[in-house]
Structures are given as C-alpha cells and as structure tokens.
C-alpha cells in the first residue's frame, strides 16, 4: 500500500514536471524529448493501472512512431527558430494564459471533488475486466475480444480515418510546381 502511494506520487510529479518542460523549453527539440519522457511516464501509469496492452502500445506508437515523426519535422524546420518565442510577444499573453489555466484546473478539480458520480455501464457486452482477464488468460486477449465484438464498427471506421489522413498528407506534401 505504501509502495503504491510512493510510486504514484513519484510518477505524478515526474509526469507533471516533464509536461511543464514541454511548454517551457525554448528549443523545440528539448520540448519533443520532454514529451517523450511524459509519454513514457504515462505508460508507467498504465502499467500501474494494469492496462498492459495500452502501456506497450503507448510506448511503441506514441513514444516511438509519432514522436519520431515529430522529431523529424522539428529538426527539419525549427533549428533556426529558437528565438521565436522571444520576438514580438504579446506582453500579457503568458499571464493571461497562466490565469486561464489556473481557472481551468480549479474548475476541473472542483468538479472532480464534488460532482464526480461514476457509475459503470459497459458497451462491449463483455464481462467485467478482471473476469475477462482470467477468462482469456491475459489483458491483451480480453482487449482483443472486446475490440472485435463490441467495438468492431469504430475499429473499421478507424481504417477510413487513416486512409483520409494518408491522402491528406499526400496532398499537402505534393510539390505544386
């Protein structure tokens, strides 16, 4: 129990610190590296919440594939853009941004502490998660069973979304001349 609390606090502090690093670093490459750390810490959160498949997918897809794409574009474009944040800044932009952020986190926390009434309904027609994990001998099997039984249609729509994204990237990446 104590170990659980300590690991949660350490993870929470590390995640929030690296997330602040993402928006605080001047250099976009440092921000991207900080974001990779945030994603890795979130994967550890998922492990703590016993979502093994999501944790592995988070590391492979997010911290791997998506961030490689990010770093590729950052190194291609932003090497000479380091001074971007200093030039021509709207004077009260940071103050107003921070104030609005404080209001948002206060409102969210207020809602979480007072209004959060969580009741469980399942759409996947599956049994409860722990039951499914023991039935299918693992988290990934339970995930796959739910994905291909209750969530088959959203899964297929996802493929359409990916095709549209590929077409969009092709159209924007094409040289017009």
């Amino acid at each position, binding site marked *: 129990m104590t170990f659980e609390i300590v690991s949660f606090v350490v993870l929470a502090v590390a995640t929030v610190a690296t997330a602040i690093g993402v*928006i605080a670093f001047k250099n976009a490459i440092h921000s991207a590296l900080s974001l990779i750390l945030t994603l890795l810490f979130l994967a550890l959160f998922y492990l703590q919440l016993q979502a093994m498949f999501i944790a592995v997918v988070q590391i492979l897809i997010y911290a791997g594939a998506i961030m490689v794409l990010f770093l590729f574009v950052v190194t291609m474009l932003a090497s000479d853009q380091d001074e971007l944040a200093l030039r021509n800044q709207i004077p009260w932009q940071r103050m107003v941004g921070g104030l609005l952020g404080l209001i948002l986190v206060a409102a969210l926390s207020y809602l979480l502490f007072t209004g959060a009434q969580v009741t469980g309904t399942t759409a996947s027609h599956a049994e409860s998660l722990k039951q499914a994990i023991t039935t299918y001998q693992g988290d990934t099997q339970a995930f796959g069973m739910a994905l291909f039984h209750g969530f088959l249609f959203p899964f297929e729509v996802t493929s359409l979304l990916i095709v549209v994204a590929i077409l969009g990237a092709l159209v924007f990446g094409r040289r017009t001349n």
Partner: protein
Amino acid sequence: MPLTAYLIVSAVIFTIGVIGVLIRRNPLIIFMSIELMLNAVNLSFVALSHFLDSVDGQMFVFLVLTVAAAEVVVGLALIVSIFRTRHNIDVDEMNVLRG
C-alpha cells in the same frame, strides 16, 4: 490510490496542454501541447477503466491513439507545407488564407 488522484493528475496535464496552446507561438509546440491534452484524457480513460472494472475505457484509448496519429500526420504535413511557401512558422504571422 483512489480514482480521484488519477483524475487530478489527468486534469493537471490537460491544463498544462491548454496553457501551452495559449502561450506558445511555435506551431510544433502547440501540436505537442495538443498531444499532452489527448494523453491526459487517455490517462483518465484508463483510470476509469480500471476502477469501473470494464475494458471499454481502453477501447477509447486505442481509438484516441489512432486519431492522434492521423492528426499528427496531417498537421505536420500542413506545417511543412506552410514552411515551404513562407519559410517561417510563426502562428501569429499565419494570417493569410491563400497560399
């Protein structure tokens, strides 16, 4: 740990993403802030999935992951395309609709 602790961490990360979108002017960092917000929501999905003892939340995380990948592909292609025509990626100077 109680569910509320995870949701608070999620809310804090989401807010950091919002602040990043508000105060930064480099579109790449704005994109990273959007990724932060998506991941904050993913954390709350996984936490709710764990505490409600249902696998549905993890399904939504899977779908959010796919949408995030598609969004990054199109967004970065847009940024590269803008950089190619204007040689500058300051969001405050993107005020012309024609290319």
